[in-house]
């Protein structure tokens, strides 16, 4: 398959781009919710508009009421989200959680997917334990209890944990913390008894929770997939999360880069437009090159993932790491080339830097994923 968007995908990009730049703009969404100290970090009415456009169900099978599209299409929406810094649960609910739920039995899919697609219920994912992404280790425990399970432990960096209706939780049902097997995924109602959510605001104004499970009672039918067989679903979820956050990262990088290149064409110093200075031209051109390469590896990986290729796992880490490096460069160069105003809250470039920082950590940063590339390559 050629590595560019086909006509349908290009149309989707137009639709998503227009919607996000108009309705999802920084002024209308990110700044609005931040400045009103919204506890959810996004607008629910706005999220319903996502649903009306069909975006919420982009990865959900047509039989389950979704659009039955792939990661290329989800990535198109995510790139526009990144470019406009649009706060929404799209990545966590419609991409990551939806990927896990697709592996659930008919009963669970029938129970949860209609709400996910209609936008009436929002899903969060509870994977990380501690400040760094280490999904190989799962310490959070789900012990057999009667016909169900009792969940104990803590999850961190649960994005939209407090505003979500449901959480997808990875827990250990057998073995020790670092075992490959013995993991089970659960669909857990946010307000189940024994759960507590310590909500915190992050540097990018997104809302996350430290979520504690203190003997949370779960029915057996809360299990997504098979008991002790959750690793495979978890891996799918993680791949979707990496590629999805990489796509959003490309949007962040391109948004920051475009804004910066525009600024170079407007700002005058020493009687010249600063874009005339070769010192800045070369840095901007290097940045362009890095961002182009990041875009390429993201679409390549999306296609591999959609084709069910074995290479998707390795390439999802390559994509996440490459985007992290390129987007990091974009926001740092963006603030520096804007000079003093780049440091002001009034200008948007700093918001890109903040969002990039949070996205770097979501689903693992460049160091984690480069290490994973080395491990998987056998050195």
């Amino acid at each position, binding site marked *: 398959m050629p*590595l560019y968007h086909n006509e349908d995908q290009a149309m989707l990009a137009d639709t998503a781009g227009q919607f996000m730049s108009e309705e999802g703009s920084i002024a209308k969404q990110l700044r609005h919710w931040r400045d009103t100290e919204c506890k959810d970090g996004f607008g629910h009415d706005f999220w319903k508009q996502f649903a009306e456009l069909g975006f919420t169900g982009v990865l959900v099978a047509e039989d389950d009421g979704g659009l039955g599209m792939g990661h290329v299409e989800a990535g198109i929406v995510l790139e526009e989200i990144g470019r406009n810094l649009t706060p929404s649960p799209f990545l966590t609910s419609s991409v990551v959680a939806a990927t896990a739920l697709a592996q659930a039995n008919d009963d669970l899919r029938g129970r949860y997917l209609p709400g996910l697609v209609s936008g009436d219920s929002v899903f969060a994912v509870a994977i990380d334990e501690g400040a760094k992404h280490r999904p190989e280790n799962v310490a959070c425990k789900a012990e057999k209890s009667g016909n169900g399970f009792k969940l104990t432990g803590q999850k961190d960096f649960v994005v939209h944990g407090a505003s979500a209706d449901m959480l997808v939780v990875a827990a250990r049902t057998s073995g020790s913390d670092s075992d490959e097997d013995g993991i089970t995924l659960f669909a857990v109602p946010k307000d189940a008894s024994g759960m507590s959510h310590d909500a915190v605001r992050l540097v990018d104004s997104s809302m996350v929770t430290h979520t504690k499970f203190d003997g949370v009672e779960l029915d057996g039918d809360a299990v997504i997939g098979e008991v002790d067989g959750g690793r495979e679903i978890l891996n799918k979820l993680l791949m979707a999360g990496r590629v999805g956050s990489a796509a959003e990262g490309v949007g962040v990088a391109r948004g920051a880069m475009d804004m910066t290149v525009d600024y170079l064409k407007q700002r005058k110093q020493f009687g010249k*437009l600063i874009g*005339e200075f*070769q010192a800045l031209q070369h840095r901007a*051109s290097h940045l362009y090159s890095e961002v182009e390469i990041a875009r*390429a590896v993201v679409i390549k990986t999306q296609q591999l993932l959609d084709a069910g290729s074995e290479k998707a796992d390795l390439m999802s*880490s*390559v994509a996440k790491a490459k985007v992290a490096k390129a987007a990091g460069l974009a926001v740092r160069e963006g603030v520096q080339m804007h000079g003093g105003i780049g440091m002001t809250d009034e200008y948007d470039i700093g918001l890109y830097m903040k969002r990039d920082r949070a996205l770097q950590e979501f689903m693992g940063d*460049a160091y984690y994923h480069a290490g994973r590339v080395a491990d998987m*390559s056998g050195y």
Partner: protein
Amino acid sequence: MSDLEAFREETRAWLEANCPEEMRQPVRDEDDVCWGGRNFQFKNDAQKAWLDTCIEKGYTVPAWPKEYGGAGLNPGEAKVLREEMRRINARPPLSSFGIWMLGPALLHFGTEGQKQRFLNEIARGEIRWCQGYSEPGSGSDLVSMQTFGEDKGDHWVVNGQKIWTSYADKADWIFCLVRTDKENKYQGITFMLYDMASEGVSTKPIKLISGNSPFCETFFDDVSVPKSYGDDCPGFVGEINRGWDVAKYLLGHEREMISGADGGARTAAIGAMLKRMVGDLDPVLRAELAMFDVDALAYTAMGEKFLDEVKVGKAHPAQPNMMKYAGTELNKRRHELMMAAGGSRALEWDSEETRGGAPSRNWLRTKANSIEGGTSEVMLNVISKRILDLPGA
């Protein structure tokens, strides 16, 4: 089964039956490359057999039309052939500046007569071409070149000097930028084609820091260049005095070639290979290798995307400059890391174990990648001007 899948199966079977075992190993260095030409010495029978088989099939230039020696493959088929060859590490049957540079220029600007003659010669590996562009006083500022062709009616008399002429001492013919109007900088250059065996042509290899001499100084002393080689076959490409258009077009292809956009060794991941070669890696080197492999695998995807877009005219016309910049900087970094992993063994200059100092000579050779065909700094200038549209660039 789709047409492409059928083509893939057919190609796989054809390669299995026709590609000699010896030709299924990655190219290690220049010595493994088949350049063709009047004086080429085949390294072994397999190299010759592989070339002959591919000539017959049109696979030395698979995407060129059949009447010019190609196989007439469409972009999708050409990509499948590339993928299938890479899968078994099949070496290119023929490498040449005729294939990478002059050929595309002739396909775009050439007359039917020129195409019939020169493209077929290139496809069959009969004539090895070299490129006369740079001059001692005209490097990055190429258009300031002075080599002059005096109009003598049915021919020119060419005088001047070129430099960095790759393999001029081994080439049969040259495509050469010659000034034919001293008053007009950009519209005073003609893109000439002539035989290196012509009287008055001499070459002098330049010894590089690698100890090898892939480049020459090339001197023209009253060289007579015909304006025509027969019916519909002029001795120049495009129009007289409009050779700069051809030169620029060809530079895009040269930059694409140097960029390694078509995948292969220059852009491959190296961590696992180096681990096998040297055993334990220092942890910090391992980390740098991991970061390199991320960049290399991402760049490989970029190369694939770039070629896909070029085929359908979606690529920005200045994108080869970005590819050249990123690809050559990557290749230089690759060899720095290979030297670091190789340690003192990689320093050996003439030992048998290193095949005559291949690691260090190759490492030094890569330093030219970001100079030849336009420096990295020139590439960044072009990106600034043509892609980012920055003022005054």
